[in-house]
């Protein structure tokens, strides 16, 4: 049985004629949305790897004794905080080495007040709430801050999590929309071709034979539209990734898609075609079962 020849005039109706393009458009949206989710997921993974080190900064105290008290209190709070796995003071020599390139000769021989830095390692699987931690530290040591990079990273992570959820949701909605549309068009086509369907049935065509007509039409439409939609979507995603690198949109991590996710995205039209075919078949059989 040729894939190009249909016993029923399914390609003659306007709704069916535009089906490949409609499927193509919806699958384009689905692939782009799922790609956004994959990018966000990959970013979250990279953030997870990098978010282990947080720097806590305590302002310089008026005297050495007070400074020691501040450090002791801050270290105690940090050690008690769930999600903190280790706390270590940055040695003064290392701190001086850090600021030397900027202060150079000015620093030598002077008693410039330098903050106390504490390196904190956090558990990436259950990191502490950094904003709350900063508040707690500031209550004990006025002016204490949690590393700015860590805080902004925390916000970026939330943004990435939002895009992951949004992308997954939008992708699934687009796929479900495609399936609903195919079901609707199949049902409308069945109603529009009542006489032709009856003709086939009068010749002894069983329901599954008639349903196969709609199934093949949906398969051909989804193969045509899905392939075009998916290729254009993947090119769009590649363009987005390329331009994000050129414009350095994300400073903490490089936006990318893992090889596995590329493969999964390329499989979207295949999975969609199978689902579309199944929906067309089920809808046609459902409609035919309501005829004598």
């Amino acid at each position, binding site marked *: 049985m040729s894939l190009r020849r249909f016993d029923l005039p399914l390609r003659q109706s306007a709704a069916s004629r535009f089906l490949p393009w409609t499927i193509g458009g919806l699958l384009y949206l689905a692939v782009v949305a799922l790609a956004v989710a994959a990018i966000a997921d990959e970013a979250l993974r990279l953030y997870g790897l990098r978010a282990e080190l947080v720097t806590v900064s305590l302002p310089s105290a008026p005297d050495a004794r007070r400074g020691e008290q501040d450090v002791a209190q801050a270290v105690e709070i940090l050690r008690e905080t769930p999600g903190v796995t280790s706390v270590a003071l940055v040695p003064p020599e290392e701190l001086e080495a850090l600021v030397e390139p900027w202060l150079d000769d000015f620093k030598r021989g002077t008693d410039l007040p330098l903050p106390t830095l504490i390196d904190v390692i956090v558990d990436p699987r259950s990191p502490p709430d950094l904003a709350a931690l900063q508040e707690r530290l500031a209550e004990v040591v006025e002016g204490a801050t949690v590393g700015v990079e860590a805080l902004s990273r925390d916000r970026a992570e939330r943004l990435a999590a939002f895009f992951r959820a949004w992308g997954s949701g939008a992708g699934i909605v687009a796929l479900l929309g495609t399936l609903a549309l195919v079901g609707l068009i199949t049902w409308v086509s069945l109603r529009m071709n009542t006489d032709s369907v*009856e003709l086939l049935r009068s010749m002894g065509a069983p329901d599954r034979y008639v349903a196969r007509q709609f199934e093949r039409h949906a398969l051909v439409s989804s193969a045509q539209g899905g392939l075009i939609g998916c290729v254009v979507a993947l090119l769009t995603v590649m363009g987005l990734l390329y331009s994000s690198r050129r414009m350095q949109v994300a400073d903490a991590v490089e936006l990318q898609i893992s090889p596995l996710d590329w493969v999964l995205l390329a499989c979207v039209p295949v999975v969609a075609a199978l689902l579309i075919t199944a929906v067309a078949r089920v809808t046609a059989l459902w409609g035919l079962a309501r005829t004598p």
Partner: protein
Amino acid sequence: MLRLEHVALRYGEGPEVLRNVNLTLQRGEFVFVTGPSGAGKTSLLRMLALLHMPAAGRLIVFNEDVAQLSRDRLAAIRRRIGMVFQDVRLLEHLSTFDNVALPLRINGGQGEQIGSVVAEMLGWLGLGDVVHARPSALSMGQRQLVSVARAVITRPNLLLADEPTSNMDGKLARRLMHLFTQLCKLGTTVLLSTHSEDLIERYPRPILHLAEGRLRGPTPAPSTLAAAD
């Protein structure tokens, strides 16, 4: 092979279009169905083609009570029935060849086997030069011939023809009637609905008369005229 016992037919919740129909037809019988417009001729043929189920009574086709059959079994029985629709009902997007080949494809026929059978049938009906033409390029008479060819291509056990000669000239109609009588001799039971007095007089066969959904007959064939075949 075909028996109707107190059969009634209605469409949905509408009134009965056929009432208390009783009929028995044997293998190889040829009967005309006549009656005024709206009498129920088309409804009777459509019901015998199993496109509608009786609202009451028993319809037995090929010794099987259709009310007891599954959808697949009904489809299998339909494959033994040829139906010529009054409105011809050709698939406009298919060629003459593909329209006629359709029942063979539905029956699971394969390429070459279908090709030779269809070509032979179209040639015999004088449609050899329009094999690849779309129905829109055919005359009304040719369209009707294609419709008949499609109905008889599987050599059905039961042939139901609804006004098959209505758009044909006398010569073409005689050719068609010759085909039907030949099929009849081979064992096909033929029910032919017609308004044509001329046809009934030329081909003396039993007549079923339908009026307001009720069947009278079969009455014997007119004896005064000789068969033209």
